[in-house]
């Protein structure tokens, strides 16, 4: 295995996030995951848009590009087509990735460019000081919604599944190990990974996920997805998901033995993933892990294969032939 450590991926730049911001933890796990994956530094490229989250590339000792608001998936697509051998990461926020950049995100997911896309969802615009974002809840009062938000929030995982994404997962800033594993999974998936990372913005939206992630009740409110394992959770009360029509229902279980009756997770079932992504209701858990994963050829492999195929058939392009083309001529001398 690699003898790299997190330290090898720490740049010399002062980190400019607020003390207590969830971004610190994500950064640490990303650096650790990079070491664990074991590629040399130069094989990683971290591409971001604009936002607090998008400052991340400055802090990672790899190639990095802090681009413009919402456009990181497009920049990353160009890079990946030019350098398919790189491990390319996209860092974005709920505003950057789902508001101004939603279309690029949708298209990169449908194309299945081999990128690991990390969406830091803090349900707020951090860098611009606290306006609501497309994932903010209805009724939330922010600087730009003093009477409460009226836009129903976008569901990031459902949105990603709807675009045809091949790998959709979720993790959270406060669970370092879970997050690290999700990051390594993202790297390993051939094609686009959409990893939503719930992240606390302690300045403008403190405690946005505390209902689920606070140590006090975490164990009772988080469902960790594992392929093949039953969809159950809870310590005080054991709960499980059962199929109900095309959807899911939460049931209280009498004991661990009942878990066997519950549905088992199958990440290759996109309809189940859809049901998991859209599950709502008073006892619905926070669902973490890989909701959906499938294999499809990547965009860049298909695009570049057309080039190698053409070369295999026609030979390496000959400039002279290009210049002359079929319709070139010498003037008939009279």
């Amino acid at each position, binding site marked *: 295995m690699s003898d790299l450590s997190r330290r090898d991926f720490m740049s010399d730049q002062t980190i400019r996030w607020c003390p207590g911001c969830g971004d610190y933890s994500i950064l640490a796990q990303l650096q650790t995951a990079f070491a664990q994956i074991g590629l040399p530094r*130069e094989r990683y490229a971290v591409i971001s848009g604009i936002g607090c989250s998008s400052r991340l*590339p400055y802090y990672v000792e790899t190639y990095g*590009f802090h681009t413009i608001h919402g456009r990181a998936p497009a920049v990353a697509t160009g890079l990946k*087509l030019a350098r398919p051998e790189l491990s390319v990461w996209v860092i974005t926020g709920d505003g950057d990735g789902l508001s101004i950049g939603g279309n*690029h995100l949708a298209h990169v997911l449908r194309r299945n460019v081999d990128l690991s896309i990390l969406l830091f969802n803090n349900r707020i615009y951090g860098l611009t000081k606290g306006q609501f974002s497309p994932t903010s809840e209805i009724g939330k009062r922010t600087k730009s919604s003093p009477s409460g938000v009226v836009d129903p929030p976008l569901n990031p995982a459902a949105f990603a599944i709807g675009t045809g994404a091949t790998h959709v997962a979720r993790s959270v800033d406060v669970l370092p190990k879970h997050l690290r594993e999700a990051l390594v999974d993202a790297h390993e998936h051939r094609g686009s990974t959409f990893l939503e990372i719930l992240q606390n913005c302690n300045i403008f939206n403190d405690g946005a996920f505390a209902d689920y992630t606070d140590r006090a009740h975490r164990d009772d409110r988080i469902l960790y997805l594992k392929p093949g394992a039953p969809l159950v959770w809870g310590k005080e009360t054991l709960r499980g998901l059962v199929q109900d029509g095309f959807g899911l229902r939460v049931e209280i279980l009498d004991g661990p033995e009942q878990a066997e009756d519950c549905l088992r997770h199958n990440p290759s079932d996109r309809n189940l993933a859809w049901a998991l992504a859209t599950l709502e209701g008073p006892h619905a858990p926070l669902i973490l892990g890989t909701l959906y994963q499938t294999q499809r050829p990547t965009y860049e492999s298909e695009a570049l294969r057309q080039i190698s195929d053409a*070369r295999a058939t026609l030979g390496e*392009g000959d400039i002279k032939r290009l*210049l002359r*083309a079929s319709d070139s001529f010498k*003037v008939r001398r009279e």
Partner: protein
Amino acid sequence: MSAQSIDHVVIRFAGDSGDGMQLLGQQFTHAAALDGNDHATLPDFPAEIRAPAGTRGGVSGFQIQFASEVIHTPGDECDVLVAMNPAALVKNLDDLKPGGLAIVNVDRFEAIDLKKAELASNPLTDDSLANFRVFEAPISTLTTGAVEPFGLNRKQADRCKNFFALGMMFWLYSKSMDPTRHAIERRFGSPFREANLAALEAGWSYADTRELHPLPFEVPQVPHIPDARYRTVTGNQALATGLVIAAQAVDRTLFYGSYPITPASDVLHALSVFKEYGVVTFQAEDEIAAVCAAIGASYGGAVGVTGTSGPGLALKSEAINLAIMAELPLVVLNVQRAGPSTGMPTKTEQADLLQAMYGRNGDSPMVLLAPRTPADAFRTAYEAVRIAIHSMVPVMVLSDSYIANGAEPWRIPDLDNLPPIAPPPPPSPQAFAPYSRDPESLARPWIAAGTPGYAHRIGGLEKQDVTGTVSYIPKNHQRMTELRAQKVQRAQALLQPAEAKGDPSGTLLIGWGSTYGAIKTAVARGRAQGHALAHLHLRALNPFPPGLAEVLSRYDRILVPELNSGQLCQLLRAHFLVDAVPLSKVQGQPFKVREIHAAVELLLQGEPPEGALA
């Protein structure tokens, strides 16, 4: 059969957008090319795919001038107009020379056809054609008859009529039909192949037997053509070719990110067939993604290029600024069309110059180049890549619809004569700093992401000089702003000095881009009449070429003909404090030589030159 020799001819084909006028024009062009005629073409078609048949709005036209001497424009006026219907006739009549020949498809002059063309009376029978020679040919009927053996339905049979018309014109100008025969054989399957061939022959025979003209004409070949290989290229083809050659010259992948838009799409089409040259084309979800992907590719060491037209350029402006700040090479093709907004998408204009120059937030200078003719687009694209990489800057190429679709003969270049393209030499990993600079060009090193030993971060926030880390230090921002400007300015070193052709004093005409041929011809005409005139045509609009100030200072009057409201004129006045006078045409059409000529006359008489367009 002998023929009457003439020096140059202008013909225009006009019909419905479904009538195949563009194909017909291209075939005629190719025949002229093979005969060694110099030539220039002007296609002019509606934005709609099949604009309503028979209406004026639906007319598609193709004009060509071909000659036994060197020419520079498709011609102001036509010697011959081929009109497939009344709308095509009336819409183009203004451009037919007095005494010119109108070849008319009389089958399409029924009451209903006249109505579609919004004509109250039949131009063939009222007085409207009194000043012209009219040849009435039942082209539809004759075509249908000629292709009868091949079992086509009515509609299919009628579609062959463009080849009938072409046959007539080949007869009239004594052109060989072989190249067109081959083309038909390559392009069409049975029974359309046979039908089109039959139509072509029938057209020729009809012209011959019916004596379209007492004697056919002949346009001899241009004397002293170098014995080289040629191609007839459109501007868009030449741009695509120039990009591929440039990328090969620097041994990098060419990456073209684009979103379809008229009239730039053909560059995407042309590049997407060059797979064996390693060209990567990416049809993005929009213009913003297209330019961003090109920037990403350039960060990865490829030659990142994006192409679009006016409204698309507006969308790309934020991202172009990222390339300016990140100091990455990037080539942006802007094939201009008539604006503002959606404007007139298939019509030509030069009105994006100031957008190209200033259409970004903050002080954000970039290099601007403009091709002057379709063939010249090859060299311009090549130079754009060269400067972008030499100076680590974005470079914009300002082409336009007229250049994009117009065609002319292009002498295939000898690659050894092209200047080399080289990135700034990379420092050693130890000495590396992302924003260290080459002392001459001020370019920073171009390190492709993935290169071992050079991992670094860049971005759109202001950078600290040398180190490239984020910096808000006031004096640093001033310095970096100046460096970005100087870098563009120093690209002057790669430009040809400014040179005026013609008289050393008197009146200077300055142009840029596609107005080249019209200005050049107008200047020649004026000088022939004894006026002291010169012509200076700018390929580089930012920075201006070396020596421009000195040239300007030699002339009493400066006239700037442009297809916009005076944009270059504005830049010249601001930079050089010269009282340059604009000649502005904003009609979606190129200048006619006579318009510029008349403007010069007016100017010399002390009148405002705009009168020339009234």
